[in-house]
C-alpha cells in the first residue's frame, strides 16, 4: 500500500544532509512551511543552498535557519522585506552568498527543472545587470537570455490539505511557488493542515498530483510568520 504520510516533522526532515540544495515554498509568509523549517534547524544540517522568493522575516522560519548559520547561499528574487534584517546583515558582512533572479525567471527555472527542461530563453532582464555573462539569442528580431532549469535535493512545502498519495490543495495565495517546487525537488516534503482519505480531494480539484510528493506530514494549526514576529518569538 502506498502511504506517504510520516508521523512528525522531525521524521520528515531527517534525510536532509549537509550541503543539500533545499527549495522552500512561500512568498513572504504565505505558504512558508514554518514547522518544517524549525524541524530542519533542530536536525542540524548546514552548508545549505536555499531557494525561496525571499529570505524570511524576524527570527523565525527561514530567517531563523539563515540566522543559525545553516545557509551558505540564497537563490531568490527579493531578499529584503519589512521585518527582514537577518539576511541583509549577513550579506553586508559577506557571510552569505546571493544569486539574485527575477521572480518570473525564478519560477520558470524551477518549473523547467521539474519538467525536464534544462534551459529556456526569456525576455526578462535583457539589457540589465542580471543578464550579464549570460547567452543572448535573437528570435524574430528580439533578444532573449538563456536561463537554466533548477532542481533541488529537497523541497519543503506547506499545503492546506493532502492525502496518503501526496495529492495536494493549497490555501489562496499560499500556493505561489509550491506546485513548481514539488516537481523540482528530488524529495518533496509537505506539511498539510489536514490529511484526508484517498478520494477526499475531488480529482478535479487536485492542484499538485501526488506523483510529485514523497512525504506528507500533518501540522494541524500552522504558525503564521507575522504572528510569531508580532509575539516576539525567536527560534530556536
Amino acid at each position, binding site marked *: 500500500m502506498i502511504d506517504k504520510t510520516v508521523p512528525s516533522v522531525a521524521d520528515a526532515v531527517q534525510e536532509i544532509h549537509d550541503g543539500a540544495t533545499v527549495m522552500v515554498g512561500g512568498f513572504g509568509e504565505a505558504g512558508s512551511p514554518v514547522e518544517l523549517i524549525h524541524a530542519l534547524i533542530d536536525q542540524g544540517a548546514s552548508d545549505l543552498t536555499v531557494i525561496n522568493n525571499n529570505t524570511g522575516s524576524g527570527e523565525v522560519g527561514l530567517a531563523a535557519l539563515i540566522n543559525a548559520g545553516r545557509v551558505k547561499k540564497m537563490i531568490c528574487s527579493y531578499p529584503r522585506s519589512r521585518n527582514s534584517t537577518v539576511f541583509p546583515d549577513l550579506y553586508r558582512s559577506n557571510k552569505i552568498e546571493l544569486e539574485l533572479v527575477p521572480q518570473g525567471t525564478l*519560477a*520558470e527555472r524551477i518549473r523547467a527543472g521539474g519538467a525536464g527542461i534544462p534551459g529556456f530563453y526569456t525576455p526578462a532582464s535583457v539589457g*540589465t*545587470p542580471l543578464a550579464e555573462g549570460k547567452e543572448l539569442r535573437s528570435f524574430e528580431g528580439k533578444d532573449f537570455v538563456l536561463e537554466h532549469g533548477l532542481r533541488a535535493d529537497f523541497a519543503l512545502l506547506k499545503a492546506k490539505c493532502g492525502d496518503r498519495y501526496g495529492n495536494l490543495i*493549497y490555501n489562496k495565495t499560499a500556493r505561489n511557488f509550491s506546485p*513548481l517546487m514539488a516537481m523540482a525537488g528530488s524529495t518533496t516534503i509537505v506539511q498539510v493542515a489536514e490529511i484526508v482519505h484517498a478520494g477526499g480531494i475531488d480529482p478535479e480539484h487536485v492542484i499538485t498530483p501526488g506523483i510529485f510528493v514523497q512525504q506528507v506530514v500533518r501540522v494541524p494549526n500552522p504558525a*503564521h510568520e507575522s504572528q510569531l514576529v508580532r509575539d516576539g518569538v525567536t527560534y530556536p
Partner: protein
Amino acid sequence: MTSPIGLDREQMAQRVALDIPDGSYVNLGIGIPELVAKYVPEGREFIYHTENGLLGMGPSPEEGQGEPELINAGKRQVTALPGAAYFHHADSFSMIRGGHLDLCVLGALQVAKNGDLANWSTGGPDAIPAVGGAMDLVAGVKQIFVVTQHCTKKGEPKLVDACTFPLTGVGVVSRIYTDLAVIDVTPEGLRVVELSPGVDFAYVQERTGTELLPAATDC
C-alpha cells in the same frame, strides 16, 4: 526641493486611472501605483493581477478581517473579489511574459528619454539588491505606465537622457505620470501631453534632465 505646485499622490493615481480602458487586465506596482485601484472611473471594470498568484484582487480587508495567506505582491493583506482566481507562479508569470496583461503601472527611480526604466536598485555599495517581478513585468506586459514624483526628494530630476541606476528594462516605458505633467515616450524623445493645473512647460523643463518636446499642437 519638493514642488509647491502640481498634483499630490492621490491625484496622480486618479489621473492614471482615467487613461485605463474598460475591461483591462492590470498589474499595479507598490507605492503610488497601488492607489490607482481606488479611482476606477464610473462605468469601467478593471481586473487586477498580483504576481504572487491572484487575478481579481480586491481592496484591503477591514481591520482584523484579513488573512495572512491572502496577500498582494507587496505582502499586504488583500481580498479576492467574486470571479477571482488563484494560480501558481509559473501561470502568473505566463500571464505577464506571455503578453496577456494589458497594462502595468510602476514606480521609478529614473526613466530615460528612450523609455529605459530603472526602478529596482540604486546600485549603491550597501544596497541589498532586490528585483522581484519588475523585470518580467516590463518585458512582457503590453503597456508600461510609470507614475512618479517628477524629482527626487533632493530635487534631482528623475527623467533623464540616460539612466545612471541599473536598468530594469530597455525602452519599455510608454507614458509617464508625474505631479507636474503627463509625458509620452516617443521616438523623438519625451513629449509633454498634459500639464498639471498651475504648471507651465518651462517649469517642467527646468526640473527635467532631458529636453522635453511640447504637446503637438494639432491634437
